[in-house]
Every structure is written in structure tokens, then in C-alpha cells.
């Protein structure tokens, strides 16, 4: 088998445990002074890339590269990826406050892929901030590569990739040639924590910074956000003491039984 080069996409997002708030002018969600971390699905992508290196015959994986698009703070996200076993990082830097839509990110990734020529691109199935679930599919389309989405299990053998994908109602198995784009689902793996030696080593690993202009990609937004608002609040519920009372309320008061 030829030596594999893997590219992993990582996005810096508001930490999954933070209860987000809409700003007072209803233009966006408050992100200043809010804890950020690696998008959970991207952690799974990083983990799978590292596991492929550990799992495949020694020397099969030549290099693992992480790519992040966003403001200066994305380097922290990339350092986390490097601490987990990624070899080097690429940061497509945009000014703080720039909105990068999935299509723009897919185009940036596409430009990097054309330069780096990875055999496998692993991305999260969706980012937990915009919940779009688009970038991996868009990238595969732009590059005319096969795609496997919502992957719960992946195997590579003789330049062929086999993936079990989560679909509505169960699992589906697909097989494709490399290079390919896969997007991770939650069940793919359990990401590891960065070790102290890993974190120390990560400081010495290279991160290359480029701009969308370097890559000749237009990142102008195509969607205009008119308003961001809180979802309607539910009215306070009531406590019931017994099963009888519950069933009674559901039948008479709520009328749902």
C-alpha cells in the first residue's frame, strides 16, 4: 500500500457545555469571553487519523495535517490537534469577526487539498455552532471525490476505504477508492486526552499561516443574517405526585392520551 497522507479539518467553536446567549442587539450569539474548544466532531476526526496511523501496518500513514480556518485564536485549536498526535498545522487566517460560511470553508479546503494532495480528508459531520452539516460534502463535490458521511467505522485496505455510515433507521456500508472525504459521527471513536509530553511536543510542531487571498479564494458571505433570537420559552410545568395523577392530567388537561 502506498503511504497515506491524511488531512483533518478542525473548527474552533464555543464549548459544547456553554449555555449560549443571544446578544442584546439580536445580531449574533455572544462569543466574547466565552470558553471555546475544538468542535467535538473534529476531535473524533483527529482521533481517527491518529488511530489509523496506530492501526494500519507501521509506516502506512506518512503524515497527518490539521487545517483550521478562522481568526488568530485558531492556532490554539491547532495546537490541541498537534498535542493529540497530528504532525503539522495549516491555519487559514481571517480577521476576527469574519463569518466563514461552509461553502467558503470548502473552497479554502479545496485549495489546500490541491496543494497538499492528501489521500484521505477527515472532517466532523457538523460544527456544533452553525449546525450546518455541509462542509465535507461540499469539499467532496468541489474536488469530485467520493464521500462517506456520518461514519461510525472506517477501514482502509489496498487503497480502498470501507465505511459504516449512520443512516436513519440503522447503518449502511459503503466502499470507495482513495482519495476520499469522510465525515465523522459520534460513534466512530472515543477521543483521547492530550498528554503532557504531547502538549510539550506540540509547541515545536510547525503551523503554517496563509490567508484566503494566498489561496485565491473569495470568502464573501452569501447569506445575510437578519436576526438572531432566543427560541420561544416554554411555560413552567407542574409536578405530579403519582402515576394516576400523571395519566389523569395527560388525558383531561393535556388531551394527548
Amino acid at each position, binding site marked *: 500500500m502506498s503511504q497515506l497522507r491524511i488531512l483533518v479539518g478542525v473548527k474552533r467553536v464555543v464549548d459544547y457545555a456553554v449555555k*449560549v446567549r443571544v446578544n442584546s442587539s439580536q445580531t449574533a450569539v455572544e462569543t466574547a469571553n466565552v470558553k471555546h474548544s475544538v468542535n467535538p466532531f473534529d476531535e473524533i476526526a483527529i482521533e481517527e487519523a491518529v488511530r489509523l496511523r496506530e492501526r494500519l501496518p507501521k509506516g502506512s500513514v506518512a503524515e497527518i495535517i490539521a487545517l483550521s480556518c478562522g481568526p488568530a485564536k485558531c492556532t490554539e485549536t491547532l495546537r490541541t490537534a498537534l498535542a493529540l498526535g497530528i504532525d503539522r498545522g495549516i491555519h487559514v487566517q481571517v480577521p476576527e469577526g469574519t463569518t466563514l460560511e461552509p461553502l467558503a470553508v470548502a473552497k479554502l479546503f479545496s485549495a489546500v487539498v490541491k496543494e497538499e494532495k492528501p489521500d484521505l480528508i477527515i472532517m466532523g459531520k*457538523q460544527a456544533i455552532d452553525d*449546525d450546518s452539516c455541509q462542509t465535507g*460534502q461540499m469539499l467532496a463535490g468541489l474536488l469530485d471525490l467520493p464521500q*462517506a458521511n456520518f461514519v461510525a467505522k472506517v477501514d482502509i485496505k489496498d487503497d480502498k476505504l470501507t465505511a459504516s455510515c449512520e*443512516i436513519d433507521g440503522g447503518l449502511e456500508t459503503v466502499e470507495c477508492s482513495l482519495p476520499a472525504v469522510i465525515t465523522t459521527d459520534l460513534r466512530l471513536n472515543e477521543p483521547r486526552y492530550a498528554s503532557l509530553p504531547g502538549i510539550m511536543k506540540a509547541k515545536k510542531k510547525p503551523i503554517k499561516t496563509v490567508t484566503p487571498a494566498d489561496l485565491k479564494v473569495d470568502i464573501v458571505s452569501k447569506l445575510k*443574517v437578519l436576526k438572531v433570537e432566543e427560541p420561544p420559552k416554554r411555560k413552567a410545568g407542574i409536578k405530579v405526585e403519582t402515576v394516576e395523577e400523571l395519566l389523569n392530567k395527560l388525558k383531561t388537561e393535556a388531551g394527548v392520551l
Partner: protein
Amino acid sequence: MLPALSRFSGLRAISRASAPPDYSIKTSQRLFALNQRSFLSSLVYIEHKDSKIDPSTLNTLVAAKQIGGPISALVAGSNAQEVAQAVSKIDGVEKVIVANNPIFDHNLAEAITPLLLAVQKAENPTHVLASHNSVGKRILPRFAALIDSQQISDIIKVVDETTFVRPIYAGNALETVQSSDSVKIITVRSSSFPQAEAGSSSAAVSEAPTPEVSVKSKWIGEEVTKGDRPELGSAKIVVSGGRAVKSKEGFDLIQKLADKMGAAVGASRAAVDAGYCDNSLQVGQTGKIVAPQLYIAIGISGAIQHLAGMKDSKVIVAINKDADAPIFQLADYSLVGDLFTVVPEMIEKI
């Protein structure tokens, strides 16, 4: 000469020259005239399995109807002809386009995308829609990228033909976005729209243009959990179990209650990860989004990610041992108690 451009400017010229609406005509005719004037038209990708239309597609058709303009439906696969007959009878569908070819089976994104591109070119719709489920999610972005359109995912409301509302941050904020793309690509949250029903007329059925398809991926097989229970996405009642069921046997209790109520079975991520039930039952940000008449959460604490998948349910019931569980802040009816005594009692008394 730029043929594509001249065609568009030609359209615009016609639109400017069109006469002001004649108020003596019937409303439906006037609406039709208005639609004609703005050249709105939608293409909906029909998902089907075992010769049956996927229920979520029926919700997507209603979203397309709300956008306005005539609706075309695309049915692809080796039994597309059969499904097309059923689709042609659905209210609002004016045209059914059929691609009856086994290459389109299993909804491989690589195969469906060239088909969508060919149909887009032939029909020139202003909106292309699919359901925001595992099929729509994998196909539509690939197509959107190739026509350079920024897809709008998982819409819950149509404001007008360019403006849509969609949840972000696991449903903790709602974003209203306006698209400047000439073709709007949209995936639709099924639980936010009613289902289209059979109408009185029958739409014309025509053959899709044949695209050149070269696919580098191959469908090998699937394992689908079959059962008699209603489908999770469209069930009127959903009974869900969480980590507190403790075991597969504990989860059986949830299933028994669901069967007694004629309900679908759901689960939290914790229950799925612990192996108490199948992955496909997961309700939440990354699983199924449901909005039934009644949602009963049993032994589920109520993490943000789970709430994202069920908080639009009409009535929420929470049964939990822990009186401080966050799910109680959302529930219409809360019962603090051990599920192992409460659930059997419910099964008995319901």
C-alpha cells in the same frame, strides 16, 4: 454572446413588462400570476424506500409550497416509476420528473448530484429542497457547492422566498437568514412543517435528462432495525429512555411502555453509547429531531444536546429520580420517582 446571461436578463425584462394584476380575477389565479411574475419554482428531491415515499419528504413538500411557485418532484432509483405515480397525486406537485435507473439506488451523493445538476439545467428551478435527514444532508451540500450556492440547512420556517429561519447552537438560538444566491438550496426540518396529503389532481410525469454518472463509491449493504413501532420522526407519541435504565433489560421496560401506548421509542446519547439500544433511536442535536404530541423522557437528565432534539414537542413529561435534573425545567408534567417502579405502574394503568 453569453447565452445564460441573456436568458436571465430576458426573463427580467419580461417581468418588468408584465401588466399590473387584474383584481377581477380569482385569488388563486392572481397568486399564480404573481408566482409567474417572480419566476419562483421549486424542485423537491423525493426520498423513497421499498416503493414508499419517505414521510419526511411530505413535510418538505409543504415547505416548498410555502415558498410559492410550481413544485416539481424528482424521483430517482430503479422503482422510480412506481413511486412517481404516488407522488403525482400529492397536493401541490405540478410535475414529477423520473429517473428510473438502478444507478440512483441507495441515494449515493456521487450519483444523485449529476442528476440534480442535469435537472437543474433543464428545469431552472429557483429553489431546490430536500429533507434534513441522512439522505438530504449528504446529497444537497455536494450539489450546492457545484452550483456555487450557500445551502441553508434545517429550516424551521419560511419567511419569504429568500428568507428562512433555522436553529443554531443546538437550537439555543434561531437565526433568520436571507440568501442572495440565484438558486436557493434548502434542507427542511420535518418536525416543523405539516405533511402534504393527496390532492384531487394528478401531476404530469416526465423523464429526467440522463446525466453522465461516474461513481467512485459503492453501496455494500445496510442493517436497518425493523419493527412494528411507528417511525420516530413522525410518531405522535415518543417514549425515550436514558442512562438510568441501567441495562438492555431496563430499556425493554421503555419499549414495553411504548408498545402499550402505540408510541415510537427514542433514547438519549448515554443510553445509546452504553449499548442499551440501537444508535438510530438517538434523539438530539446529532440524532433525530422530533416534535410529537407527547414526549415522555424517562431517566434522561436533559443535556443541551438532547433537549435540542425534543424541546418543540407539544407536551413533555419527565420521569426522573433526581429532582434537580435539568429536564424538569422543560417538562410540562414532572414526576420525581424511580423509573423501575413508575414505568411498570404506567404500563399497568394506561
